[in-house]
């Protein structure tokens, strides 16, 4: 069946494309009807396979164009924050379930009949292929951390691909970079009109770089950076004493940051034009970075600071990222962990806000999780182990987690290995004291599976039914 009423603006959108769209959508409906997950990316996968140029055409029919966010960590949360601001005044085509490969982007654009603006988070590896197709008005590059080396390859390799992609950007695209990441900041050097954001508050800095910190050596000359302040992983106020390469001047900064436990974070959002105090209803310094990325994006689109504040202050959690769910009288706190830098921040935030006495940690090793599970040894789990009294480890590689924790000195008798996820959740709920939250830290596919358990119990809405 063809889809009537499609606003076919671009000459490239042909009858053939319309047929492709219809077929791809039909496949999505079948997938959902067959309860094979959300059918999030299936239509896009089909379309992407049939006609790669379809993305160009679909994106070109959006009257306000597209904006793109990429980063190793925080792209789902940053784009959800941006949606909270931008969605108030326009209809968005937004890949809100984190389907950020070409197929997910294609699916989102397929579904976006009446949308005005495309808000797309894009996987860091898929970015170079998608940028020339999407031709975004604004491109936000958040950070590069080592992540699933078995899948993405080395950090420098991704950086190289980004460098080439940025060099090809049309002049009309506003490039927004995180100035606190030396590799990412360097991408904007010499680019006209680029926007640089960062954290400017040494009071919340860490005493030293973490074990897993990446990019510790100067992008220009290879000497170690000196940090006036290290905030998250290798993000901070860096300077190379050998060649002088240093963090550039910030166009948008977070200052005077007050971390309020597991509840919220307040800070001044400061640009040359205005300073706005805002209260973000999310914990953790890494969420300040996410808020900066979202704010820079929205300001670049011309949103007034007051609208940015309203959007950020009314923000809920993104899919599985600090999501709170009430289950059998417990408050379950769901924190996705997927690489050392991201996991360290989730843990740091829990440790500062009070570690729940009972934890469920789940490690899978599917492609989306990373088949190589060695990264768990580079995560500083120690503050969590010091604060928790009972831990259930789960997932296909539960035994590896058990070894990680017991070799760190966590008593074996306070640890339980329950490989299957649903029984593990049951057991953790049983162990958690009635009036205390249960902390759940799953890797990506474990998070999807646990969320499905909660969805089947009617406790969270399936992600494909969430409002935009």
């Amino acid at each position, binding site marked *: 069946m063809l889809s009537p009423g499609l606003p076919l603006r671009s000459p490239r959108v042909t009858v053939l494309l319309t047929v492709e769209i219809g077929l791809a959508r039909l496949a999505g409906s079948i997938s959902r009807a067959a309860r094979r997950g959300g059918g999030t990316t299936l239509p896009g996968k089909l379309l992407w396979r049939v006609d790669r140029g379809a993305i160009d055409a679909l994106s070109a029919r959006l009257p306000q164009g597209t904006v793109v966010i990429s980063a190793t960590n925080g792209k789902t949360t940053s784009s959800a924050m941006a949606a909270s601001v931008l969605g108030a005044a326009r209809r968005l085509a937004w890949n809100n379930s984190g389907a950020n490969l070409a197929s997910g982007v294609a699916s989102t654009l397929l579904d976006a009949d009446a949308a005005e603006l495309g808000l797309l988070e894009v996987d860091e590896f898929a970015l170079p292929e998608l940028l020339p197709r999407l031709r975004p008005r604004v491109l936000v590059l958040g950070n590069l951390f080592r992540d699933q080396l078995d899948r993405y390859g080395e950090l*420098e390799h991704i950086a190289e691909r980004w460098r080439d992609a940025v060099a090809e950007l049309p002049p009309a695209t506003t490039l927004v970079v995180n100035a606190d990441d030396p590799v990412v900041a360097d991408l904007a050097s010499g680019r006209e009109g680029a926007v640089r954001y960062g954290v400017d508050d040494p009071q919340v800095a860490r005493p030293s770089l973490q074990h897993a910190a990446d990019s510790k050596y100067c992008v220009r000359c290879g000497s170690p950076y000196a940090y006036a302040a290290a905030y998250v992983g290798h993000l901070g106020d860096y300077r190379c004493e050998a060649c002088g390469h240093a963090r550039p001047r910030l166009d948008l900064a977070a200052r005077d940051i007050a971390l309020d436990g597991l509840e919220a974070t307040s800070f001044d959002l400061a640009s040359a034009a205005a300073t706005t105090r805002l209260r973000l209803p999310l914990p953790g310094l890494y969420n300040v970075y996410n808020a900066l990325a979202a704010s820079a994006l929205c300001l670049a689109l011309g949103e007034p600071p007051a609208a940015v504040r309203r959007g950020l202050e009314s923000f809920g959690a993104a899919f599985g990222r600090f999501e709170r769910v009430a289950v059998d009288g417990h408050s379950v706190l769901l924190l996705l962990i997927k690489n050392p830098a991201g996991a360290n921040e989730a843990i740091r935030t829990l440790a500062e806000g009070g570690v729940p006495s009972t934890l469920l940690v789940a490690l899978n090793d599917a492609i989306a999780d990373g088949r190589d*599970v060695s990264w768990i*040894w580079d995560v500083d789990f120690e503050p969590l182990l010091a604060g928790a009294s009972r831990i259930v480890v789960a997932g296909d590689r539960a035994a590896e987690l058990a070894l990680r924790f017991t070799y760190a000195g966590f008593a074996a008798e306070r640890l339980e290995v329950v490989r299957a996820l649903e029984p593990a959740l049951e057991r953790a709920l049983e162990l958690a004291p009635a009036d205390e939250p249960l902390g759940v830290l799953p890797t990506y596919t474990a998070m999807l599976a646990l969320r499905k358990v909660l969805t089947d119990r009617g406790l969270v809405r399936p992600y494909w039914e969430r409002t935009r």
Partner: protein
Amino acid sequence: MRIRLAHLYPEYLNIYADRGNIAVLERRAQMRGHELVVTAVGIGDRLDAAGHDLLYVGGGQDREQALVAPDIATRGDAVREAMDGGTAILAVCGGYQLLGRGYRGRDGQWLPGAGVFPLETVAGDRRMIGDVLLECELEPGERWTVAGFENHAGRTLLDPGATPLGRVLAGFGNDGSSGHEGCRVARAIGTYLHGPLLPRNPQLADWLLSQALAHATGSAPEPLEPLDDALEADAHAVSARRARDRGGRR
């Protein structure tokens, strides 16, 4: 007994959970009443190789490895002398390549190594990534499997007559074709296997500890008192199954 471990370039070579290997050695030594004393050795630092019972060199990304290479190339004599004197060595991934004679890059450029292991590495076209399972026989008649994960672009070629760490049961190994993985010289082991290597291969951890203890005491290596390794065995079994199911595929 104090076991003296020198950890080479921990600031540069640490990507594949190398500190997991150190944590395992530390704890397993402690559970037998020994103390592992770890000294970090960075670029340009003095290294008294023979004054240590165990040397550890981990893996790094290409950029970090290139930063370390000129320094490690100057350490060849000291490390070889220590090895000849009975110091044990564990070198993983990048560290394994750097302790060989050198690395031939894709552009033909030759990056000299420490020349401790009888091998050379040449850059390959495609990375060899996946789970691996080996069969090792470090002591005559004692065969066991070693399970881990590999991720390397280099093809490592052992000199004729050199001894590999083990025979590849599943996965790529040194070069994807010889059926060999790693290299062993006396008490020194080089391998591509991370994951990290030692938590799920406790026999190998204990073998290294007993070699290091032998150097510390000046006597012959003795087997260590067994520990409850149920979790380790479980992790090993899952990792070995992964290698059999999906190792060595491109």
